[in-house]
């Protein structure tokens, strides 16, 4: 099987990893191993194998028909190979120990062993390798927001489980104990939590994860979404990462704190600068801003995503940056101490329903493009942009993020950066799939329209 970017020592290591996995399967009495991977839309996919097949899976991969998976195969080459990444092997903590189960993330390859273009995890690997060739390590720490509701039935409206708001101590609420149990489970699955609290909206919660390298974090986000939903479901509660489930209150975002390291130095930091930002950081931000509109379809991939990106709810709508202005797209958090390790860039538009592998890929690519091309950083927009008129914004040269999925797709389609980052296979499939989603939405006659027009027109 192909070994990605490792030398002889690496190969020996991989042997040991396999041995470790096989022994653990035996020693812990694992009955089922779940092979996890992600489709182009960011849905977690899984198929289970018996422990007896695990050795075979680790050595040669498991063949499966990819044509059933969204965005995977063209019909003529539908068989693909799932190659377990032994380092992601974990026992699933919520499963009854008598029927213990484990999971392992997989890379998807073609039958000849080369990376499969339709696999988002391989896309992120490829982009991280490109960053590594420039000497960079890319770290991400997401702040993930979500809601707890009563389990929905068809056509039902979401019913929040509590009326708490930001930082409320609603200790008697079931949702607080859910969050606690969720955090415990995340920690046992190697996903360290930095903070967690009740968010601004009723029944809305936020869990902030500690930074890891982007590949580990993308895996962690996939695990996170499953854990949150599983723990909620155990208590007959529905957890959702829908970007804007309730009208009139804040939606759910996934703010991403971005770090870039080179030779163990935080290359975003420069103690001499008034913002503590290095020129590398400034170019990176400039890259994010210049390509923000192009990558929005990936970071905000649903019709509903754009109902979150509206004024008045702390979600960004303007393509701007600032230190302490939460209306901007990019925020440079002011550090508590003069700690070079903490210097980072917060990218605020993504929502938790995105595909983390693809979102991290396009964000990294936009930033690196800024560094390569030495983009000039526009001035900081430190006043509240929500209160500014259009003419004022125009004068400052501040543009808006795409207003709808249709707008976002339109810009993405013309983006050479996004095409190159995602690869032709995913780029084309994604546009096709999302256009169809938009058409479905556009032809729908909503209750809003009926209420507003049926009688008056």
């Amino acid at each position, binding site marked *: 099987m192909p070994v990605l970017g490792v030398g002889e020592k*690496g190969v020996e290591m991989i042997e040991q990893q396999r041995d470790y996995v096989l022994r653990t399967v035996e020693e812990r009495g694992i009955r089922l191993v779940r092979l996890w991977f992600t489709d182009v839309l960011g849905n977690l996919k899984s198929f289970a194998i018996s422990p007896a097949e695990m050795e075979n899976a680790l050595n040669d991969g498991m063949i499966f028909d990819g044509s059933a998976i969204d965005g995977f195969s063209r019909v003529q080459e539908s068989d693909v190979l799932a190659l377990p990444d032994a*380092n992601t*092997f974990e026992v699933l903590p919520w499963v009854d120990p008598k029927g213990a189960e484990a999971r392992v993330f997989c890379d998807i390859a073609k039958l000849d062993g080369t990376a499969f273009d339709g696999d988002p995890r391989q896309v992120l690997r490829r982009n991280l390798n490109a960053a590594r060739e420039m000497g960079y390590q890319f770290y991400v720490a997401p702040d993930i927001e979500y809601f707890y509701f009563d389990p929905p039935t068809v056509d039902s409206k979401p019913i929040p489980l509590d009326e708490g708001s930001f930082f409320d101590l609603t200790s008697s609420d079931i949702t607080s104990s859910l969050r606690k149990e969720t955090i415990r489970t995340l920690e046992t699955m190697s996903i360290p939590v930095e903070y967690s609290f009740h968010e601004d909206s009723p029944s809305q919660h936020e869990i902030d994860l500690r930074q890891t390298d982007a590949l580990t974090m993308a895996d962690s986000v996939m695990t996170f979404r499953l854990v949150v939903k599983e723990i909620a479901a155990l208590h007959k509660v529905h957890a959702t990462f829908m970007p804007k489930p309730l009208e009139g209150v804040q939606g759910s975002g996934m703010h991403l704190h971005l770090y870039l390291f080179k030779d163990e130095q935080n290359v975003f930091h420069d103690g001499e600068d008034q913002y503590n930002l290095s020129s590398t950081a400034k170019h990176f931000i400039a890259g994010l801003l210049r390509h923000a509109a192009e990558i929005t379809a990936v970071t905000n991939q649903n019709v509903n995503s754009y109902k979150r990106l509206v004024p008045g709810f702390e979600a960004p709508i303007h393509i701007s940056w600032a230190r302490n202005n939460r209306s901007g797209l990019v925020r440079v958090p002011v550090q508590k101490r003069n700690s070079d390790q903490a210097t980072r860039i917060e990218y605020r538009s993504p929502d938790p329903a995105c595909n983390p592998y693809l979102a991290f890929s396009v964000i990294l690519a936009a930033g690196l493009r800024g560094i390569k091309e030495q983009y000039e950083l526009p001035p900081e927009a430190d006043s509240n942009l929500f209160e500014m008129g259009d003419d004022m914004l125009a004068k400052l040269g501040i543009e808006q993020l795409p207003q709808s999925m249709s707008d976002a797709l339109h810009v993405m389609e013309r983006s050479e950066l996004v095409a190159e980052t995602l690869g032709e296979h995913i780029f084309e499939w994604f546009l096709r799939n999302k256009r169809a989603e938009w058409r479905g939405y556009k032809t729908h006659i909503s209750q809003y329209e009926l209420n507003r027009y049926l009688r008056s027109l």
Partner: protein
Amino acid sequence: MSDHEPDRMLAVFPDPAPIDVARTLDLSGYPWKAVKSGEVLDKLEPGSGWAGAIVDCSQDPESGWAICRALRRREDPVGRVIVLVTGAQLPDLEMRDDLFDDFCLAPVHPRELDSRLRHLFYADLAVSHESLIEYSDLVLNTETYQASVGGKPLDLTYMEYELLKFLAQNPGKVFSREVLLSRVWGYEYFGGARTVDVHIRRLRAKLGEEHANLIETVRSVGYRFGQSRWN
């Protein structure tokens, strides 16, 4: 399990073995077989004979004591028999002193059983103690790749296990991130040396509050496992 059948083994009654007993034996590296009655004792016996036995009398005392009698009544009686009894069964031990060498209260506390085993079988059983790394409550079995703290198994990823093993093999020594990366990871990784911080943070979370301080951060140098040898 391992490729070769170890010469001397423990017999464990009943079959299936009580889960805590099985786990304690596995984690400490004692080879064992479950036996369901006195009749199969001979059939299952390894070539060089039973090294000892753990007999749970708490669930089915009658069959339990029958096994003990069978073990002792043989031509070549089996020594080192530990019986498990509940507190209420303690009076049963009287007048049966010939049937056991030590006892343990059920439900079994893994640490207790482990200590009693170690005492009884010290230097006797072919337990590959070289494959055990112990520090305080932490036990790593390098042969089975299993780790436990306070008798409870730890679920670790491969790299977490390797990092913990390396640190526990070198208690009191301070390692920089770079050294840990090259010694434990050994090849270039997407994360660079910061990966070490990520894994240390995870290990501490999995060790639990009580044991998280087994791994100490040495400011601006790196990490140290356990006490500094100078303190």
